[in-house]
């Protein structure tokens, strides 16, 4: 027993920090209907500032805690509410998830851009009366130091206070009402904006608190450490159905305790230690998603006033006049021809490399157009599926001497198979539930398969050899051969997506996206449609992953971690998730902007600023769900129509031609 407690007790502080984030997720979801993916990043930001102040500026723990957690974190939460989430209709669950992801991806990069790369090592405690370096007593061979005691004390105080707030105050009651409909409780005289703002400030304070506590427990830390925190917290909140504070707290502490206990008992050389143990929070999350029926209907809008929300605006292509449409199509062919000629003749090598990277990445991003834009299924693991394709083809080349392009087809097939398993596992999940399931899958792959040296080559990765491609042409300095390969592959992928979109399967997917109830009621087999679209998107992502690997001449697990899956979503959402050109513009745009930023000095030259630019650009999704680039295209197209056709024909229209709101007439917006 003493042995067991000796392993279990160190897990309690970790469990406590998971619990604080889990309860913060519950609070935000209860009060605002937003599942805030950004909590992990908010926690990281607070820990970052706390550590910079204590480590670099030599502040003591308490004032650093006040600045980073008591002042900064609630202000960040209020900013999220005021500038972003307040503007998203309750019924638009996709926008809420995507904006949370943008912040999740963008905040750590923003911290790097502002403060530069830092070696973060937090050792201070937030409570002045607990010294981190003093062991106050020993319990079952576990030294109980100041960090341990301050973590437990703060967690208990915060959770008791929050439970009292939600259960016994009128503010708590108003928060519970606001989640149903902010607009409806306003009609009852409640200042719902104020209530929601308080919820955001409180939950953000908790995120900051958890970040600082966890940083103290970690010692040296980086942003990726907070993904485990996030998944454990999400798993705990899921078991509480995003409603129950006690269940979320209990499960969170249990995850912390079970993790350290298993760490103690399992031999470090066993596969369970290296593969299963890191995946424990993901298994707990997946179990909640599969077992709990309440997780299947998480994002169903309960807002009785959701019918007054306008429908999504049309794409630029759908709203322009036929003359303009013909003109733009011809212009695109001319631009394409000029681009191809330029790539093969005069473009400098640096830029040729950037464009080739963009074309390869565009193929991966097309899979998001297919699965999210056309089918309305939010998959957060397309980068992982690309990695499956990349590592499969590389391993086949290493072990069987198979040409990587041939192996790429096998890799694409394997990625499709993985996607099919995911589709079958998540048959009953929609929206947020599906997003969580696919995110869990991505993190699981990161911690297991992609972490295995035998598969991914570990931190070194797998360096490609020209012989694996049958010819060294693809590795040549001029990059012409690779350009042609990427163009052919991308053209094929575009053709597949366009043919599917205009075919019966595409129409069935559009029907499924519009109303699953009505689609099934017409005779459409939704299970089959989901499996087909997951498989096809998986195959395209898998082959795209092979192209990116060839372009980078290396297959590396870092290139395909969950973070990139999220970044890919952010990229496509910025430019337009519903159109094929949106994926291509996102892929090429990412590399072009990265290349342009290399001309800037110092820390701005890395990928951090690119991610910040796209992530914060994608926040426009809240106001323009068709994509900010797509929105601008529609506006400029209409302006050109007026200029070129002098207001004749169909061009004399509103610059923001949102159709009359369907939902205002009773349809499900």
């Amino acid at each position, binding site marked *: 027993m003493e042995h067991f407690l000796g392993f279990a007790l160190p897990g309690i502080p970790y469990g406590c920090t998971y619990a604080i984030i889990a309860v913060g997720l519950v609070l935000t979801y209860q009060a605002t209907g937003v599942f805030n993916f950004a909590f992990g990043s908010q926690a990281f930001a607070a820990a970052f500032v706390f550590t910079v102040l204590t480590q670099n500026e030599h502040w003591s723990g308490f004032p650093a805690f006040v600045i980073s957690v008591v002042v900064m974190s609630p202000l960040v939460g209020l900013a999220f509410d005021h500038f972003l989430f307040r503007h998203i209709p309750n019924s638009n669950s996709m926008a809420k998830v995507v904006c949370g992801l943008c912040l999740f991806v963008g905040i750590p990069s923003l911290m790097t851009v502002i403060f530069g790369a830092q070696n973060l090592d937090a050792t201070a405690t937030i409570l002045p009366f607990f010294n981190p370096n003093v062991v106050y007593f020993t319990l079952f061979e576990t030294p109980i130091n100041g960090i341990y005691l301050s973590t437990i004390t703060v967690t208990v105080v915060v959770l008791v206070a929050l439970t009292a707030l939600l259960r016994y105050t009128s503010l708590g009651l108003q928060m519970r009402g606001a989640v149903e409909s902010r607009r409806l409780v306003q009609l009852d005289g409640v200042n719902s904006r104020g209530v929601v703002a308080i919820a955001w400030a409180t939950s953000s304070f908790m995120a900051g608190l958890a970040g600082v506590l966890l940083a103290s427990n970690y010692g040296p830390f980086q942003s990726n450490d907070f993904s485990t925190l996030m998944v454990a917290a999400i798993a705990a909140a899921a078991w509480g159905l995003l409603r129950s504070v006690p269940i979320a707290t209990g499960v969170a502490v249990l995850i912390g305790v079970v993790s350290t206990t298993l760490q103690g008992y399992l031999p470090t050389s066993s596969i369970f230690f290296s593969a299963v143990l890191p995946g424990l929070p993901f298994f707990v999350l997946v179990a909640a998603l599969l077992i709990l029926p309440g997780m299947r209907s998480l994002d169903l809008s309960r807002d009785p006033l959701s019918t007054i929300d306008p429908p999504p605006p049309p794409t630029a292509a759908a709203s322009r006049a036929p003359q303009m449409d013909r003109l733009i199509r011809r212009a695109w062919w001319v631009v394409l021809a000029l681009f191809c000629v330029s790539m093969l003749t005069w473009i400098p090598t640096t830029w040729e490399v950037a464009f080739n990277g963009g074309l390869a990445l565009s193929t991966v991003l097309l899979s998001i157009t297919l699965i999210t834009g056309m089918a309305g299924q939010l998959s957060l693991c397309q980068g992982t599926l690309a990695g499956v394709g990349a590592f499969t083809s590389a391993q086949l080349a290493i072990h069987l001497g198979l040409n990587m392009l041939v192996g790429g087809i096998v890799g694409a097939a394997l990625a499709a198979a993985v996607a099919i398993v995911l589709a079958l596992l998540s048959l009953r999940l929609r929206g947020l539930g599906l997003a969580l399931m696919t995110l869990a899958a991505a993190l699981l792959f990161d911690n297991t398969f992609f972490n295995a040296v035998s598969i991914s080559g570990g931190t070194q990765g797998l360096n490609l050899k020209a012989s694996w491609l049958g010819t060294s042409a693809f590795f040549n300095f001029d990059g012409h051969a690779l350009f042609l390969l990427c163009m052919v592959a991308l053209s094929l992928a575009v053709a597949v997506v366009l043919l599917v979109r205009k*075919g*019966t*399967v595409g129409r*069935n997917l559009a029907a499924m996206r519009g109303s699953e109830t*009505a689609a099934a009621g017409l*005779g459409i087999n939704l299970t089959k449609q989901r499996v087909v679209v997951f498989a096809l998107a998986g195959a395209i992502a898998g082959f795209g992953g092979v192209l990116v690997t060839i372009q980078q001449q290396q297959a590396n697990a870092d290139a395909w971690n969950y973070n990139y899956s999220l970044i890919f979503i952010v990229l496509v959402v910025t430019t337009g998730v519903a159109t094929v050109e949106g994926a291509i513009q996102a892929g090429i745009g990412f590399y072009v902007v990265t290349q342009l930023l290399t001309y800037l000095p110092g820390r701005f030259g890395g990928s951090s600023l690119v991610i910040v630019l796209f992530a914060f650009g994608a926040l426009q999704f809240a106001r323009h769900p068709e994509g900010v680039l797509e929105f601008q295209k529609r506006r400029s197209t209409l302006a050109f129509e007026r200029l070129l056709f002098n207001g004749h024909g169909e061009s004399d229209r509103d610059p923001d031609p949102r159709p009359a709101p369907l939902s205002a*007439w009773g349809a*499900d917006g």
Partner: protein
Amino acid sequence: MADAPALLSLRHVAKSFGGVRAVHDVSFDVHDGESVGLVGPNGAGKTTLFNCVCGQLRNEEGEILFEGRSLDGLPTFKRARLGIGRTYQKVEIFTDMTVSEHLLVAERARRGEGRLWKDLLNMSAPLRVELDNIEAILDLVGIGALADTSVNALGLGHCRLVELARALAGQPKILLADEPSSGLDIHETAELAKVLRTVQRERGTAILLVEHDLAMVGEVVDRAVVMDLGSLLTTGTFDEVMANPEVRHAYLGQMGAA
């Protein structure tokens, strides 16, 4: 009519939500080409019964037969392909499609089409016969002029007609219409009643109509089934059931019964 085999037969159907009995021991038949009104006050269990018939909910007790075949265990899409069409109380349309695309989806879904290889070989273009069918149904419903209009640009009345046309494109043997006149004005309701009558007479489609506008029900149905609080109250011709004191009580309370 009563001696002919039933197209749709409900036998002691029951459905509960938690401890609430939404539908309890409901049995009635709908025959081929017949138009039946399913009426009752709010909370009577009419839409729940529709959901049980379509497979969107599973009935806990009893049996639902379609053309003598039990529907137990059949998913929604297979029931639709057998010939059960439906419109919805809250309009369910596909927001990014034109009116005719709605019908094309329904037409192909009925046949279980949707082979990926056909799409990839560009063999999924609408056939002439499909376009003719769509045109005929749109004309029947009276929205032929809107064929190429995006449903985003339509009002509620037209959206309800699109739903009806889409359901008819699946060539159902029975149409379950759930409050089709909800949100329509008096003229649109009259037009809708005419369309439903035409569908029944010209296409031989049986209709099971849930509707609160009793004047419309009286115009459309051959007979009516009345439900209250999840149970079947009475059946008969529309005039018979409306004269029934129990029905008046269910709708109007003590004063109505008196």
